[in-house]
């Protein structure tokens, strides 16, 4: 039996990296006595697949991973048992049984929604909301992506699917697939650069609100993509 697990990662847990989160859940599953399936071989490991990795420093209300069980178990019971052994800042939100035909969490990821808010005391220029809306509406959104040595020019526009700007927060729906993803911070950086404002990365709080897969040509939360 395959189960998809949705969880949130908030508070101080944002400082725990992706690999450590995987290790955290491996132990949590054992503490919760969930009869997970193991791979064969001399050093067997739990059969577990995580959706899109979340960068250190970001929080999330829509993280996912799939597990395979050795003996079937009620999904609600899994949720309850796991929630009893969580650290503060991690909560299991949803558990859904997957059809055998369902693609794994990682391969299913198409997009993710983010909410950007600002640290207390961050000073933003007057009229920035209008400026940002205009910036996102351009036919092309150029961004200099700096990898270790080379700087690459990237057009963010085709990877940005939706956005909504208010005084309090910015909503962004962007590509999060393993092939073509962009980070929301790219969008914000490109914008502030374009209006000549320097704002420290640390004054932006970014929360992933949901991770989506594709059902036909519609984005649906991974928890609804069970077939």
């Amino acid at each position, binding site marked *: 039996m395959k189960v998809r697990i949705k969880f949130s990662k908030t508070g*101080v847990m944002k400082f725990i990296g992706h690999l450590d989160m995987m290790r955290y859940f491996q*132990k*949590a599953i054992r*503490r919760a006595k969930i009869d997970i399936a193991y791979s064969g071989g001399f050093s067997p490991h739990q059969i577990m697949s995580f959706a899109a990795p979340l960068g250190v420093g970001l929080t999330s209300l829509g993280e996912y991973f799939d597990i395979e069980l050795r003996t079937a178990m009620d999904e609600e019971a899994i949720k309850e048992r796991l929630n009893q052994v969580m650290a*503060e800042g991690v909560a299991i939100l949803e558990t859904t049984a997957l059809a055998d035909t369902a693609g794994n969490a990682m391969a299913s990821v198409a997009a993710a929604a983010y909410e950007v808010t600002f640290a207390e005391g961050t000073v933003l220029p007057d009229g920035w909301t209008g400026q940002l809306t205009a910036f996102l509406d351009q036919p092309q959104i150029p961004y200099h992506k700096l990898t270790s040595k080379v700087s690459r020019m990237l057009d963010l526009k085709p990877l940005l699917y939706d956005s909504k700007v208010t005084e309090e927060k910015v909503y962004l729906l962007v590509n999060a697939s393993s092939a073509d993803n962009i980070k929301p911070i790219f969008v914000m950086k490109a914008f502030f650069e374009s209006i000549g404002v320097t704002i420290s990365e640390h004054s932006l709080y970014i929360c992933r609100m949901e991770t989506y897969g594709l059902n036909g040509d519609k984005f649906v939360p991974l928890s609804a993509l069970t077939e």
Partner: protein
Amino acid sequence: MRKLALKDEYLLLAEKPARYIGNEINSIQKDKETTAIRMALCFPDVYEIGMSHLGIQILYDMLNSWEDVWCERVYSPWVDMDRIMREASIPLFALESQDPIREFDFLGITIQYELCYTNILQILDLSGIPYYARERSDADPIVIGGGPCTYNPEPIADFFDLFYIGEGETRYRELLDCYLENRKQGGSRDEFLLAAARIPGIYVPRFYRTEYYPDGTVSAMKPLAEGIPARIRKELVDDVSHTCYPLKPVVPFIKTTQDRVTLELQRGCIRGCRFCQAGYLYRPVRERDVDVLKKYAITMLENTGYEEISLSSLSSSDYSGLAELIDFLITECKSQHTNISLPSLRIDAFSLDVMSKVQDVKKSSLTFAPEAGSQRLRNIINKGLTEEMILEGAATAFEAGWSRVKLYFMLGLPSETEADISGIGELANRIAAVYYETVPKEKRNGKVQIIASTSFFIPKPFTPFQWAPQATKEAFLDKAYLTRKSISSQLNQKSIKYNWHETDSSVLECVLARGDRRLAPAILEVYRKGCIFDAWSEHYRHDVWMETFKENDVDISFYTTRERADDEIFPWDFIDCGISKEYLRKEWHKARSAAQASSESEQLVTPNCREQCQGCGAASFRTGICVLDKNI
């Protein structure tokens, strides 16, 4: 949600922010308003090392089991965070509450190795606690030291309010009650310390004065207050099966050095290798009941979710319930996909059989610790491992599929000759030859791999070698060179790899291990010059240490290469670890006459506690192996 002591941007700048946020599974939150005593336990090294230490886990568990105490953890901020905290003037904080250490009642520091002394000063400095105990006020926490280095606490005695000598399980309640009582009475810091100095096992340095002869050796150690003991006797747990054990240890988010459940089989060691401090400090051997251990194993695995369990003890092969325990673990763990990590066992048919069940033979290696290259020298150090045992063990292992062997040696042991050193290459060569003799060509999986490693001998307090001189740095280098030469001249040299450990820090370790109170100013000076993490070779600055010793008129040869007279009073003699000085001296003399002997058969070796009690003095604790009927 807890508020962190460090702002997001600082944490995100650090290499591993998880070191500083706490929140781990099984870490303890309490209400500081309703707990009478706040204690911070510190392992003065980086989080991943400190979190792996069993002793702190035991104390953390015990102290938090008391309702009126909230015990938290603190580790050395790594160099990146050290810089950030200094620049931003952020005081050092405990992981659980994220509150500044300076607000605590106690700061307990475990001192596991000499090379962490500057890290202790870093902890005090970042906490805003004065370095010297005498300069602290009632607003500062009481700074306690514990752990193996407190068996000679003198070089750092001035930095501590008190030392707890021995195993922590026994006297903390008494100590804390004494503290509460003093607070109720409105007593001062000094009044508390004086009362504490009367509790068995507690050493309060400010109430003792060391006096010296003109030649610099100690003439006396005098108590300065009424009613405090002239000698401090170590504390120890009588019955290790019925004491506290951390059944819900804290589970870190990041990988630590011991990222697994640790099961402590026993305390102490029956063997009596003459160089080994732990072998004397923790006498007598006390075994934990095997049924208790089985229960612990299951409970701890359930409470942590760890996928691995390891057995810990100084010499696990000597644990009488080993076969039963391992059988149980293998059955239990197989079904749960739990790995068993075995400590280095004596290589014989039993251990090979067990190892082949729990690890991949092709990937794992055999470990032997002959410590010396020749039988002559092994007899002198009383290491009861013969060449025959090694070669036989290796042959059996090679037949069973092993092809990697690790060998550990020490260079600079008392009376070592060139022939003893050449013995290292010869022994490695013979092991390689055994491989080619026992394993037919078609079954070989490439060449046999032998890795010989040497470290430099450091004479330690409370061993028979506490009288022995350490070799000079130059001699060490020559010895390492000779070892390399002896290996490269062997027929099978291509199968042998040689590693050696730094010479420089071995010299410093020797100074600090056998040092006295006169070293404190130099240690502080070295710290002020920016040295921390001396145990990490990339941060160790030998030149700064040596230059500072010189500036402070410390002649290091007084502590390292000087041979001590039989009747010299050592700076640590006021501590009573249970082993009589007479016994240690007898062992030292035995070693020296073994060095003079014309043949191996004339060398006297000392049988282990199980073969025959030697009357070392530890029987005065009336527990463990000393009171077992040896005829059963």
